[in-house]
């Protein structure tokens, strides 16, 4: 299966839900305000959020009143153009600078951080980079064991301490070890934390600070993992994690379900953080580069 096909099949549900429903809505109907109200419904049920939805429908209304939109095809084209522009330009995760390239992976509980790290490690290794993963989730029972299994599967080095130890020191040791061993990429796992718990957010700030002690330019990437099933709260998560450590990219997971992942529009619009990666399946290779143009194309083809 080619990349685009894989993406399309992963997104087919999103596609079905947005495009086909728009088409159904607009079938045999003049394009009027009521039709746009129905588009609003479709957008909202995709978790796109009230604000981004208002922007999209406002745009469509202008086009309707100016007489630029007549057919359902026009609407689909306008909708697609608008959504692509909301998602912004292509900004994949790229390794740069003096190695090691340190990626700190953060997010709330249960979004798929550890799994994303496993997939990411596998991907870098297949591209010929050496990878070290750091078991920085010292809180959840068996989180370290879970990462160890990924280390065995992918052949990535692993730095771990005991359960309950200081995650900042795990991160520090990992960066030091990577420098000593000449490793290209360090991926640091962290415990899932709700953004509302300030002591845990302080812990995250500390991890970030301590990494900089080992390597001033690191972490070069701070990746927030967001579950596509999450509703408007994902925006809160992005805001608060961004305030705490400065998020540089987002990995959107669990797009293989029926959740439409529309929240990325709101996140991009509100905070401007690019989505780097999307998880479209359970397989090791199911972590894909997020490409706004292809994402939108897959939605509207």
């Amino acid at each position, binding site marked *: 299966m080619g990349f685009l096909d894989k993406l399309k099949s992963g997104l087919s549900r999103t596609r079905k839900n947005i495009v086909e429903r728009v088409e159904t809505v607009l079938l045999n109907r003049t394009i009027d305000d009521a039709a746009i109200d129905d588009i609003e419904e479709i957008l909202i049920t995709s978790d796109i959020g009230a604000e981004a939805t208002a922007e999209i429908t406002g745009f469509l209304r202008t086009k309707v009143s100016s007489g630029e939109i007549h057919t359902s095809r026009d609407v689909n084209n306008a909708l697609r153009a608008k959504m692509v522009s909301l998602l912004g330009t292509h900004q994949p995760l790229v390794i740069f600078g003096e190695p090691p390239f340190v990626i700190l992976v953060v997010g709330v509980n249960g979004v798929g951080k550890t799994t994303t790290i496993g997939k990411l490690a596998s991907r870098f290794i297949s591209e010929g980079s050496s990878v070290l993963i750091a078991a920085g989730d010292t809180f*959840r029972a068996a989180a370290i064991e879970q990462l160890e299994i990924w280390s065995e599967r992918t052949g990535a080095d692993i730095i771990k301490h005991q359960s309950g130890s200081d995650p900042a020191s795990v991160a520090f040791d990992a960066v030091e070890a990577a420098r000593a061993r000449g490793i290209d990429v360090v991926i640091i796992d962290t415990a899932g934390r709700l953004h509302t718990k300030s002591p845990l957010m302080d812990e995250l700030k500390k991890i970030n600070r301590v990494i900089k002690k080992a390597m001033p330019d690191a972490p070069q990437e701070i990746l927030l993992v967001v579950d596509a099933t999450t*509703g*408007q709260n994902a925006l*809160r998560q992005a805001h608060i994690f961004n305030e705490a450590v400065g998020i540089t990219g987002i990995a959107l997971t669990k797009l*293989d379900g029926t959740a439409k992942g529309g929240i990325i529009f709101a996140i991009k619009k509100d905070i401007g953080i690019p989505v780097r990666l999307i998880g479209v399946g359970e397989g090791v290779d199911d972590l894909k580069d997020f490409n706004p143009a292809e994402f939108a194309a897959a939605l509207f083809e």
Partner: protein
Amino acid sequence: MFESLSEKLDAIFNKLKSRGLLKEEDVDIALKEIRLALLEADVNFKVVKDFIQYVRERAIGKDVLDSLSPGQQVIKIVHESLCELLGTTNSRIQLAPNPPTIVMMIGLQGSGKTTTAAKLARFFKKEGRRPMLVAADLQRPAAIDQLVTLGKQIDVPVYAAKETKDPVAVSEDAVKKAKLEGRDIVILDTAGRLHINEELMNELTRIKGTVHPQEILLVADAMTGQDAVNMAKSFSEKVGIDGIILTKMDGDARGGAALSIRSVTGKPIKFIGAGEKIDMLEAFFPDRIASRILGMGDVLTLIEQAQQSFDQKEAEKLQKKIMEESFTFEDLKDQLKKLRSMGPLENLLGMIPGMNKAMKDVKVDEKEFVKIEAIINSMTPEERRNHNLMNGSRRKRIAMGSGTTTADVNRLVKQYLEMKKMMKMFKGKKGFRLPKGMSF
């Protein structure tokens, strides 16, 4: 952006109030805001649509003349309707007539099944039952280890068969073992799965058909968005569920998914998970979630927590003391201790309506309480009962004894005197009564 609904509605209802009557147009304006708020709270679009229609009919038909204010009337109808939809009873786990009772946890990946399974086991253990946990999640790496570790923490046995690849067989063997060992509750932790994965959904049906669980509980993340309906519908239709546990309620998600899931499945929400610690499984109260979805503050939780911490008898004793003007430093110390036992003060303040915004950036210094307690502890019993005894040298001694400064001691005495003055004012007021359960 995150302006709460109560603020928005306040503004609208103030307008309504000034007009005196609740007219159809007014209701529609208010309902437009409520609709938006519900959508922002992640309540499913269709559920919102039905709900708004329902409230509209009730609100417009209602005689508003005898209500306190039109605004309050609408809020009341919205809140009542929400509670009604969320279910009115606080359900419990149905026990099997012949033990063991088998409880099966199902849900999407990352919804919190394993943690919740352990919390539930602890809940039963505290009730004096003999639970057993079963590691039937053979998919996620180290899921078995996670359950084993959690089992150790709460001293509940965990059935795990690492060599077996079939969760149906694991579940079956586990139930056999539970019967042999006289376990009365068996909690099956199944693997997280997508509701559209037919193969894995069939696996759940097979487990169900083999062990015949008494309760199948759907574990759902409170942060779930619009997709909550699809997920809940699939699990409900394909496997069948008896109840719902809503997790991660300790975050700031408004929990609109609760309403969506409840509407789609018609099954009760039995518990909520409110923290990572293993004892943080709470009963579900529809009225509280309704307030939360509406962004109105969790007043009832606050009141209940207060009631737990403040013994009614003691409250009466305190009231008497206030009436007799015999409130001493010893009483003050007791009250502070109780206040603190209600949990972190920041949480308590957040539950008070209107405080959410005001308290957003305020951090309550819990250390201040420690200081006050230390100062009171350094007083002699006589000094605690009679503040007049505390002259300069005594205050100096108290400061040294409590590791504070004389200025701190002076401030506390001054605050105490002001408090007494206020109590005297209360006493003077005719008909003054302490709010039930709340005495500080």
